[in-house]
């Protein structure tokens, strides 16, 4: 298989992750714990949707893909390649913050690797959103450290959130079928390498916060093959509700 076939697989799973977690995090808009955090979290959710859009555009321009809006709103759950971590309901703020921490560090590692990519559009996108990702991880790290230093109940909840999220986060790094081609053509270093770098990056924060990093014993795979929980279809129904009233409408 050539990279012309393998690259869309990579782009779609990344874009779907961004769209779905962006939508999930936007569910906190208006409900955040305090106004300042509400604005920050909503703003970052918008950034994620922007990243998804940029990746769908690359698919459209370079791989004869469909219109980004159509692609985002008209597919069914089984066509989505997001990790199951992204589709989980927002639950409570400890869960959402921990998911944000784990996901955004994974995202950062991935885009950092694209600064060396032989596929120019990804290299350019990585350069463009570098500053956004820097803020996202800064925000996540600060909250993790803050809440782990805010008493026994708070720290206990953060540990519980980490335990709940960790195997799901492992699913981000589920290997793609045609990954070897992408590695050989120096498009990106592959999921195993990204996973290792991710562990290297999150471990010092986890340690500083006084949390215990679980063992990755049973990463939740399947999302990259279109296997999802019931939560994804519910999310898609809600997200695309207005769009599907008139898919041809111009916005």
């Amino acid at each position: 298989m050539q990279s012309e076939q393998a690259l869309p697989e990579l782009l779609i799973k990344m874009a779907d992750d961004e769209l779905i977690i962006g939508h999930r995090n936007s569910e906190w808009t208006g409900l955040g714990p305090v106004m300042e955090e509400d604005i920050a979290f909503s703003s970052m959710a918008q950034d994620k949707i922007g990243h998804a859009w940029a990746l769908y555009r690359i698919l459209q321009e370079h791989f004869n893909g469909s219109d980004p809006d159509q692609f985002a709103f008209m597919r069914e759950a089984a066509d989505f390649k997001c990790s199951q971590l992204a589709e989980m309901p927002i639950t409570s703020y400890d869960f959402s913050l921990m998911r944000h921490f784990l996901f955004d560090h994974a995202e950062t590692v991935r885009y950092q690797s694209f600064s060396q990519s032989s596929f120019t559009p990804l290299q350019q996108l990585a350069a463009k959103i570098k500053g956004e990702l820097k803020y996202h991880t800064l925000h996540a790290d600060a909250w993790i450290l803050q809440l782990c230093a805010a008493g026994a109940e708070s720290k206990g909840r953060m540990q519980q959130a980490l335990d709940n999220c960790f195997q799901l986060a492992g699913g981000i790094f589920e290997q793609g079928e045609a990954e070897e081609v992408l590695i050989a053509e120096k498009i990106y270093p592959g999921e195993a390498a990204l996973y290792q770098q991710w562990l290297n990056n999150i471990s010092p924060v986890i340690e500083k916060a006084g949390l215990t990093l679980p063992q990755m014993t049973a990463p939740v795979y399947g999302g990259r093959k279109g296997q999802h929980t019931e939560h994804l279809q519910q999310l898609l129904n809600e997200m695309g509700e207005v769009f599907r009233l008139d898919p041809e409408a111009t916005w």
Partner: protein
Amino acid sequence: MNESLDPRVNRLRLNNSDGSFSIEEGENWNVFEVFHQEKRGAHHEHVGCVHAPDANLALIFAKEQFGRRKKCVNLWVVRSADILAFDLEDEDMFANNPDKTYRDASGFKVMDKINKFKAQSK
């Protein structure tokens, strides 16, 4: 008593039966003043405030609150309580300023001399 929509108010536990309440150290958040810098070397201008548990998170909040629309290269945050200001009643110290026009730079008539010097040095 109904719960407030603001968690900071709820943390005060105003509905204690004996009418007393206390705030533990660090329990309630501080107000931080935010200063915005539009380009390197320019002054930081006061743009508003944020609530935060410490300066670190105040800066993180300030970034989205005040640094996401117009051009911005940096921000400062300062705990409002750390700012020293005059009392309102001391405003009379400044009362006669408008009379003292000799302190305005515009009071000096120097352009004639400058233009003459420029003409000479050509």
